[in-house]
């Protein structure tokens, strides 16, 4: 149903093919959070996975020992900005699920502070998702989710839960925080799965 708005010509004529529809390239890194930023000391941080078979947890050092890798990915925020070619460092979730068995198909990510977001388990595996500690060569700052955040770059960035505390597997795709508050259950930026 799109129509032309009189007088609008736009500025960014060259469109990067890595930019999904409706997105604008940014050089800075905007912050979006629903509430105050929690203050988490890595010494107190733990990562917990709960499945129908039980609970598994790692402290900061044990978790790093699973195997840290460097990746370069694009990130896309539902509020229409994208950042391309960002360097990240973290533990791939494949390493976590090497040590955890579940028959469930979905995961709820839980953050310190109470934030939640739902992701299908198969979209967290095969090199698609990490628990990240560094971005652009620096430790993640608290407002960007430090000390650790989930990184699922192929989905809109609200899925990359800041201040990640753990994952709880679930048999159904129950909605997380933003998914209950207006955002799409899945969130593929190339399909523009932004809102309900």
């Amino acid at each position: 149903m799109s129509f032309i708005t009189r007088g609008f010509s736009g500025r960014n004529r060259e469109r990067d093919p890595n930019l999904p529809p409706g997105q604008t390239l940014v050089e800075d890194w905007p912050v979006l959070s629903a509430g105050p930023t929690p203050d988490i000391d890595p010494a107190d941080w733990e990562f917990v996975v709960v499945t129908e078979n039980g609970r598994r947890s790692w402290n900061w050092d044990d978790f790093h020992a699973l195997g840290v890798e460097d990746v370069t990915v694009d990130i896309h925020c539902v509020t229409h900005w994208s950042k391309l070619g960002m360097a990240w460092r973290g533990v791939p979730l494949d390493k976590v699920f090497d040590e955890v068995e579940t028959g469930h198909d979905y995961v709820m990510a839980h953050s310190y502070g109470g934030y939640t977001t739902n992701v299908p388990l198969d979209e967290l595996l095969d090199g698609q998702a990490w628990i990240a500690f560094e971005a652009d060569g620096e430790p993640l700052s608290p407002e960007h989710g430090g000390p650790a955040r989930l990184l699922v770059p192929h989905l809109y960035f609200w899925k990359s839960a800041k201040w990640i505390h753990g994952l709880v597997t679930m048999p159904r795709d129950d909605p997380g925080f933003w998914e209950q508050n207006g955002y799409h259950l899945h969130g593929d930026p190339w399909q523009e799965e932004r809102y309900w």
Partner: protein
Amino acid sequence: MTRRPAGWHAATVRAVTVETPSARRIEFEVPSWPGNDAGSHVDVRLTAPDGYQATRSYSIASSGETPRVVLAVDEVPGGEVSPFLVHELQPGDQVELHGPLGSYFVWGPDGEQRPVQLIAGGSGVVPLYAMAEVRDALQEVRRDATPFRLLYSVRTPEDRFFAPELSRFAGRGLDIRYVYTRQAPDGWAEPVGRITRETLAAAVWPVEQRPSVYVCGPTAFVEAVADWLVALGHEPRDIRTERFGGG
């Protein structure tokens, strides 16, 4: 809050008025609009003759089940969309709106009636204004209207959004405190400068009142205010934030 599906809507500009030296109030007529809660936002999409599109999110200054949607857009210098909206848009022009969006940073009279604390930095007052407007309409019919306070940090008196409306609301029970960061009105007794933890502590509802707090403004402002609120003893879950940046 009312659950309303987000969708694309054709919007026609009815009026563009000067809000502040750098901002315009834009009133749209949107016949298919399902209404929106106070505090929600909308995506504005502009299409150029060659098909190029640009989309940005803006908070909505209006609410309720009405085809009238009001935005107040501050120009981000060097931006692509806001300078167009501020300088070029005229009555009769059409844009696409996608919304209403967001059902968390919203307030309505149907929930629990705890005191409400609004804290705005600059144009961050827009969604908070929508909430204050609902409260103001309510106090005409309900004597027990929710107690509302607004703490509004703004550069100078002429940079205040919704100045006449807020003065009117103040006469009907909205408690407003201004913090001027660059220049205050003549005879202003408070210091001029950025908001401090002390100013904040003195202006907001005390922790014992368990206020529902809404903070909206630039990221650095929201980060500082939210951190101080937690340090003052407010529960993080009672503090809702919305930040803006980029153009």
